[in-house]
């Protein structure tokens, strides 16, 4: 099992490394159009062919992987921090504050987050720049995807509040922020880390789904979501199998994440 885990980590590290060094490995900028090679097949010059605008798919895949793999953890970090702040404080304070927060969590959970996101993302101005669309896509994912993590963190904080450790701290006169941030939050670390890791694949898939319906990262910036849009024409993918490369990379990365998550679950 350790070997399999190391392989999964190795694959993730390789994909991360390749995407981070996209400037070195990509033969062309992601937006550069080779007008004489529109829809070109895979060749020595274009490893994965070119798209309908003559852009090199291999270069776009490298840059797209960088965007998806860097921003999904960033969104996961934001959503987990929001969840710690809201869920942790609710679990610690209890009483009315806890009830209100639980109700807010229920409200957020009662609307599928992709629906909420659809509303917010589609309401951006028509002239939103591609860079702004990337930042906003992942920022909103982080800000709208905190509810389920908050519920779990709240439960953790609530059980810690009644633990001997906190009872001792209280007996020693520790109160307020010090009790929360020195005694409760550090002990929530395993739960928080688990939520963070679980959120990453969720956000990767979320961005891919939004990209497929044209509401993810704005063109010409590439991401796994908008690269997968080419699959909306499966006949083309059938005759040009290299178009499946983004899907294959996505499945490999997600499989590694799922495997590592199941290992963590098993270890816990």
């Amino acid at each position, binding site marked *: 099992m350790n070997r399999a885990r190391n392989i999964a980590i190795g694959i993730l590290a390789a994909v991360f490394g390749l995407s981070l060094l996209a400037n070195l490995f990509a033969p062309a900028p992601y937006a550069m159009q080779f007008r004489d090679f529109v829809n070109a097949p895979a060749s020595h010059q274009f490893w994965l062919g070119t798209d309908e605008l003559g852009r090199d798919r291999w270069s776009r895949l490298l840059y797209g992987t960088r965007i998806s793999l860097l921003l999904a953890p960033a969104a996961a970090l934001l959503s987990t921090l929001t969840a710690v702040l809201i869920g942790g404080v609710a679990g610690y304070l209890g009483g009315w504050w806890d009830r209100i927060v639980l*109700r807010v969590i*229920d*409200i957020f*959970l*009662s*609307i*599928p*987050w*992709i*629906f*909420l996101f*659809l*509303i*917010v*993302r*589609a*309401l*951006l*101005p*028509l002239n*939103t720049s591609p860079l702004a669309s990337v930042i906003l896509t992942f920022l909103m994912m982080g800000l709208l995807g905190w509810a389920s993590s908050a519920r779990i963190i709240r439960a953790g904080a609530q059980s810690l509040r009644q633990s001997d450790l906190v009872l001792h701290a209280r007996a020693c006169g520790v109160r307020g922020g010090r009790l929360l941030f020195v005694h409760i939050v550090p002990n929530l670390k395993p739960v928080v880390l688990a939520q963070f890791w679980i959120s990453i*694949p969720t956000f990767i*898939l979320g961005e*891919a*789904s*939004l990209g*497929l*319906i044209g509401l993810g990262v704005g063109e010409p910036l590439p991401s796994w979501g908008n690269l*997968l849009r080419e*699959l*909306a024409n*499966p*006949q083309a993918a059938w005759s040009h199998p290299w178009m499946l490369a983004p*899907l294959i990379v*996505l*499945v490999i990365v*997600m*499989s590694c994440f*799922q*495997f590592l998550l*199941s290992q963590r679950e098993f270890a816990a």
Partner: protein
Amino acid sequence: MWIGRIARHLAAFVLTTLIAGLIGATLVRFGPGFEADEQQLDPRLDAQSIQALHDSHSQERNLLSFYAHFLGRMASGDLGFSRSLARPVRELLAERAKVTLRLLATGLAGGWMLGLALAAIAVIFRTPLVEMTTAAASSFFLCVPTAVFALLLFFTNGPVRFAIALLIFPKVFRYARNLLADAYTQPHVLTARARGLSEARVFFWHVVPWTAPQLLALAGVSLGVAFGAAIPIEVLCDFPGIGQLAWKAALARDLPLLVSLTIVVAAATQLTNSASDMAIAVCRRERR
């Protein structure tokens, strides 16, 4: 006691649904593109027409008054008029709900049956091969966006509705497998097996009832998950359902339609969660 419990659920249901509607309206109203309308880019329109389009948003600028009017009309069964589709919202919802309900029903039923069947197989026949195969199958389906499966099924003339089942089944499988494995270690199950009861009887009489409350809780959550997956499926595979309607409404910044949709979606999810909560309470009572 039961009346009090139902009343509490009802009050929570109404409050949550209304606040969800308000959140939806707030997001739309304060979205930076609220005043923008793609029609305004039409070069054939003159300045007066563009101004008229701009003014058509005027009634929706004051969020609270819009929402209060909306709720007042909703109480009498009027959900407003969709600006983008030029039809009453109620009519649109009635028409499209059927498509989405069929999609969700097939997907949920298929996903649950497949997930539970595989979980039962994995727990009853505990061989490394069975465990590895079922775990690999469920992991694979968690790694691919559901919309990609839907597209694949759509272009091969396969059952697109089953795409949702492919999303639900791995979640049900993982949860149910762990629950069933845990149930098999319970003293009452060990006793039943020691007394020589058949595997089928042990499973259906002693294991399944033990896991029912937790599975019901997951059932409540799975509707929201399935609806989230239905949106891209309906958009990409041209299913005229609620998900596609939401997408169109969002792109057209159609406030009355979006608020109605938010309320309907929140109400449906809340209703399922409340129903599963009540069923869990009944199960626990029966178990005691």
